């Protein structure tokens, strides 16, 4: 049954490459062990559970590393490797499962495994007191499995399955503290919001399949919706159905990333998702799962980035740009440290989506990578703060924590500098490339990108100053977190500082730069980002410094300016921002006024008309059942009578048929 077939024509065969799917299986095994162990009752010690999960992630990481070492040798010959197995081959339908890897996939694997491993270590400290410690680790392993399998998926069918799986894991983990009503409703909200997007994605995939069915159903046709064949299929779609249909299908698929990566207008679930435990916010809602949307766009590039797909690309770019700026403005007004970081995540995801829309494939994914490291670190640091301040999340009751929590404060500062994009921290390299891409493609988006950079500097330093400088305003004694929590923070600080210049290709020339490694498949207009645009760099530096200066003036211990001045000075704007642009109220209005009215009308229709019909049919079926049952009287004579009569009737029926 297993028929390895190289996805590309090249026949390079390596032993190491034949079981890459195991990368995703290790966490599944860990999940199974924990579930089974808890069920049978022999798994009782917390360190063992944690060790199983961390070990499984390390195995995934080492396996990825081993595969990459082999892959390095052939990257020039064949950028895509993979293996598929037949899953459902019926008639013209060829559905496969398997795995596929290209540089983008490797990058995602590394990011997911590294960040996951560190967060899983951190979790041990953060969740130690929790009564459901084991369940939490089991969910972490389940999420890891889903995420790695999503990255490895060789076709959209498999990707969609794991896309839903990560959604489920996210739902379970947001609502982990089930006894809190706010956590439960946040989980439901995340699930519902993602349903909207996933429904679009599903409809998009189905219509894509339906419209290009002839392409997938030949004798030598590729597996259904497999990524290497996506470009050809898209050309087929364009050729046979025109640009309009093509764009609609593409945008429907884009709805998936819109919800998953919290883009406007399906973004409102992400801030609420911060009700989950902080390691989850760091892992799922900052570093990995929300980036899956960007990853899907990258995988869809053969379709989006072809002649005729300009409409889709423009929409993607604008959705990303608007999300970036809207989220940044909301972040300005938040007092909950995790909410501020959540909006910052949303804003950075906006950057990535915008980059993808502008054709800056490498830049978008580069930012995905750097952001995963520094944002995970920032969230973990905020978790450390929350932990140290006895579950206090309001920054107005923090302050001066630099003295009591020096390690946390330092890494938070590093993260802040990285996200604001200051040379030479990692955020600078990736963000600069996006801004440069915007500069060369769309002037308005360029202004948005630069402006957002300024806002980012302001709100990030605002959180830093409010939390770590000045006087402590809380009631409980704050304390530094244990080593098991600070160590991952320190380890995450290293890539946050260094990964940017290491992979940018400027300073370390013997290492391949990110942009040469990661190239868009079937690139139509390729954005070359091998040079620094000094105009762009200068402008964005100035704006960033402006943002920093404003934050310093208002929130540093010196208090040069009173924030209230601005709050009162631009009252309408402030109200708009602090109410999150009234998106929640808007949805609430839709749900309550519009949806409920429609629902009530259909409920009436259902009760009066449909139920009546159903009742009637059930009644008639019931009556005929009783009637037919009478025939079954238990007497073999009457049974035989039915037999003979039946035969006679059949003969008569046939005779009548023949006489006609």
């Amino acid at each position, binding site marked *: *049954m297993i028929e390895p077939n190289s996805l590309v024509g090249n026949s390079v065969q390596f032993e190491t490459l034949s079981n890459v799917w195991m990368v995703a299986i290790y966490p599944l095994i860990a999940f199974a062990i924990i579930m089974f162990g808890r069920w049978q009752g022999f798994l009782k010690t917390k360190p063992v559970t944690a060790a199983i999960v961390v070990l499984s992630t390390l195995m995934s990481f080492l396996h990825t590393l081993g595969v990459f070492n082999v892959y390095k040798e052939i990257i020039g010959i064949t950028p895509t490797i993979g293996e598929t197995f037949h899953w459902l*081959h019926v008639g013209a339908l060829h559905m496969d499962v398997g795995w596929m890897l290209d540089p983008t996939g490797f990058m995602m694997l590394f990011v997911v495994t590294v960040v996951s491993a560190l967060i899983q270590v951190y979790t041990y400290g953060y969740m130690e007191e929790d009564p459901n410690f084991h369940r939490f680790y089991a969910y972490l392993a389940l999420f890891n499995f889903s995420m790695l399998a999503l990255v490895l998926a060789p076709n959209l069918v498999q990707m969609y399955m794991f896309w839903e799986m990560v959604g489920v894991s996210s739902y379970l983990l947001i609502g982990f503290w089930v006894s809190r009503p706010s956590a439960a409703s946040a989980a439901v909200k995340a699930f519902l919001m993602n349903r909207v997007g996933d429904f679009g994605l599903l409809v998009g995939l189905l219509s894509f399949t339906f419209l290009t069915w002839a392409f997938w159903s030949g004798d030598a046709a590729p597996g259904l919706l497999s990524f290497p064949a996506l470009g050809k299929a898209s050309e087929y779609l364009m050729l046979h159905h025109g640009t309009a249909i093509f764009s609609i299908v593409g945008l429907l698929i884009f709805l998936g990333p819109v919800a998953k990566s919290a883009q406007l207008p399906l973004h409102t679930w992400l801030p609420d998702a911060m009700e989950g435990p902080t390691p989850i916010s760091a892992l799922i809602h900052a570093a990995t799962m929300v980036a899956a949307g960007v990853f899907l766009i990258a995988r869809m590039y053969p379709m989006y980035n072809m002649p005729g797909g300009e409409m889709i690309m423009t929409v993607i770019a604008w959705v990303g740009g608007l999300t970036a700026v809207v989220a940044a403005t909301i972040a300005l007004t938040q007092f909950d440290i995790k909410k501020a970081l959540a909006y910052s995540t949303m804003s950075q995801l906006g950057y990535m989506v915008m980059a993808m829309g502008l054709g800056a494939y490498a830049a978008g994914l580069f930012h995905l990578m750097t952001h995963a490291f520094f944002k995970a670190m920032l969230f973990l640091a905020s978790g450390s703060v929350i932990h140290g301040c006895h579950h206090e999340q309001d920054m107005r009751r923090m302050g001066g924590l630099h003295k009591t929590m020096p390690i946390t404060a330092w890494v938070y500062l590093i993260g802040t500098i990285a996200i604001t994009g200051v040379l030479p921290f990692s955020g600078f390299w990736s963000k600069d490339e996006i801004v440069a891409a915007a500069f060369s493609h769309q002037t308005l988006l360029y202004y948005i990108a630069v402006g957002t950079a300024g806002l980012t500097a302001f709100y990030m330093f605002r959180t830093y100053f409010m939390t770590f400088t000045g006087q402590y305003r809380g009631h409980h004694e704050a304390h530094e977190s244990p080593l098991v929590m600070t160590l991952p923070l320190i380890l995450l600080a290293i890539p946050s500082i260094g990964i940017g210049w290491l992979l940018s290709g400027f300073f370390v020339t013997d290492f391949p730069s990110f942009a040469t490694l990661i190239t868009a498949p079937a690139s139509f207009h390729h954005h070359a980002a091998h040079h620094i645009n000094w105009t762009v760099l200068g402008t964005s530096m100035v704006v960033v410094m402006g943002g920093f200066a404003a934050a310093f003036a208002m929130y540093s211990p010196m208090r040069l300016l009173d924030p209230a001045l601005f709050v009162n000075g631009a009252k309408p704007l402030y109200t708009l921002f602090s109410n999150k642009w009234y998106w929640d109220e808007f949805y609430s209005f839709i749900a309550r006024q519009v949806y409920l009215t429609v629902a009530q009308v259909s409920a009436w229709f259902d009760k009066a008309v449909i139920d009546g019909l159903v009742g009637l049919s059930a009644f008639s079926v019931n009556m005929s059942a009783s009637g037919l049952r009478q025939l079954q009287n238990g007497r073999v004579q009457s049974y*035989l009578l039915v037999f003979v009569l039946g035969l006679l009737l059949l003969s008569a*029926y046939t005779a009548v048929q*023949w006489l006609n």
Partner: protein
Amino acid sequence: MTDGLVLDTQFLKFLLPELCLTIGVLMVMVLTIAKTRHNADEHGALAVVSMLFSLGALALLGYNFKQFVDTNPSLIVHLSQPFLGGTLANVPEPETFLYATIRGDFLSYMIRGLLLLGLVVIIPFSTKYLEKRTAIMGDYYLLVMGATLGGMVLALANDLILLFVGLETLSITSYILAGYLRRQRASAEASFKYLVYGGVATAFFLFGTSLIYGLTGSTNLQEVTQGLLDYSAMTHPTLVLMVLMVMATVLFKLSIAPFQMWTPDVYEGAPTPVAAFLSVVSKTAAFALLIRMFSYAFLGFADIWQPVMMLLAVVSMIVGNVVALKQTSLKRLLAYSTIAHAGYMLLGIVVLSVDGLSSTLYYLLAYLFMNLGAFAAVLYVENAIGSDQLSDISGLLGKRPGLVLGLSVCLLSLAGIPITAGFFAKFFLFRAVIAAGNEHMWLILFALLTSTISLYYYLNPMRLMIVGEPSKVVEGLAPSSDTPMPLTLATVATIVLGVWASIFLNATDLTARQLLASSPPIKVEPPAVSQHLLIPAPSHQDQAALHGHQ
């Protein structure tokens, strides 16, 4: 036809599974006679011996099949490749043995495999049930293996006489099996009813086959098939009578309405493992008979029997599903469910297409596991609470979670809920019927409608077991989490068959192709039946291959 005087010993190899099973029957017989005192140990030994020989027969069949495939290189390509709608030209001619009385085609392998699989699942769960109720166990194994043997002969027969011998071996042993618990009134009554009803049906079959012989002067299936083509129903109305007579018998075995009346009474009265045997093994053998007679010998006269069978398939779906709603006993409910399922399976035959036949065969495989699973679960429920009444199983989840889970999966599969084999079986079947032509849409309409109705009575026992208040008998039950092995096996197979359906579809597709490639052309008689009925939208290559055979 093979050379007259030289006895080709090839046939012995082909018949190895049957020989093995026969030795098993003899072994059990000797063991039973040698021991006069019966005890539990001996029951176990008998069961083990029967099981070993059944498994041996299954293994020999597999080995045989492998050899068959190895000698047909064109096949290897086909079996290892995914299902791509291969051409008829690739399918090897079926071989015949022993003066062309035995036919070694894919169908014979497949049906015999199914029968043996059924037997292997049934034997282990019979023991526990019968031990409690009777002291004489040996005869049971002997009979159940003998009946399977009859079914296997039926599946490989290429001669009307051999066909009849197989049918009678199966029938007569079934009559005795139904009355195996002879001290129980219900069991004896079931046996008697089955005997009388079956006797009448057999008489019809004999009458029908004698007409065949009268018309063609041969009992060999190939010769009969060719010979019948000389006649036209316009000039020989006997032909219609002959087809209807044979049809009545086959449909009686399949419990298709209006020949289904015996089914509920016999299933309810017979010991539960016997009911499972009748509903699965006996029915599979009957399908072999149906396919041999109607998809092969009478295919030329499809326009006579096709409308009738379509009608009866629909009537069975309606009767089975509707009357099942009112049942209060699980066994009776399953009896009506088998009537309905027979109706669905008949659809694949009546559309006269490769896809239809192939999906019926897949349906048989799925049905084997899900129905045996359901019967096994009912059996264990009966063993636990001593009743199969719906009112008594209420709230069983708390006491027997494993059992309830297994039964639920099987019921969901019978209802056709996705990821189970039952869903895919229905899916492929309906797809084949739709592909066979728009004029068959009404069949699909009824099939969907009755499937919807069936949801009620399949889900109702689940609802009772899972959310219902524990009944009196259930309350007195000691909790236990163990899940019996046969039930687990059937449940897992039900899901695996669904998820990996494509592997089996390869084989069923090949079987159907081989069968229809060697079938006679459909005669176009006054009510015009167009050629496209045979294979939906064939490629040019297919058509060329097909006409080549004519």
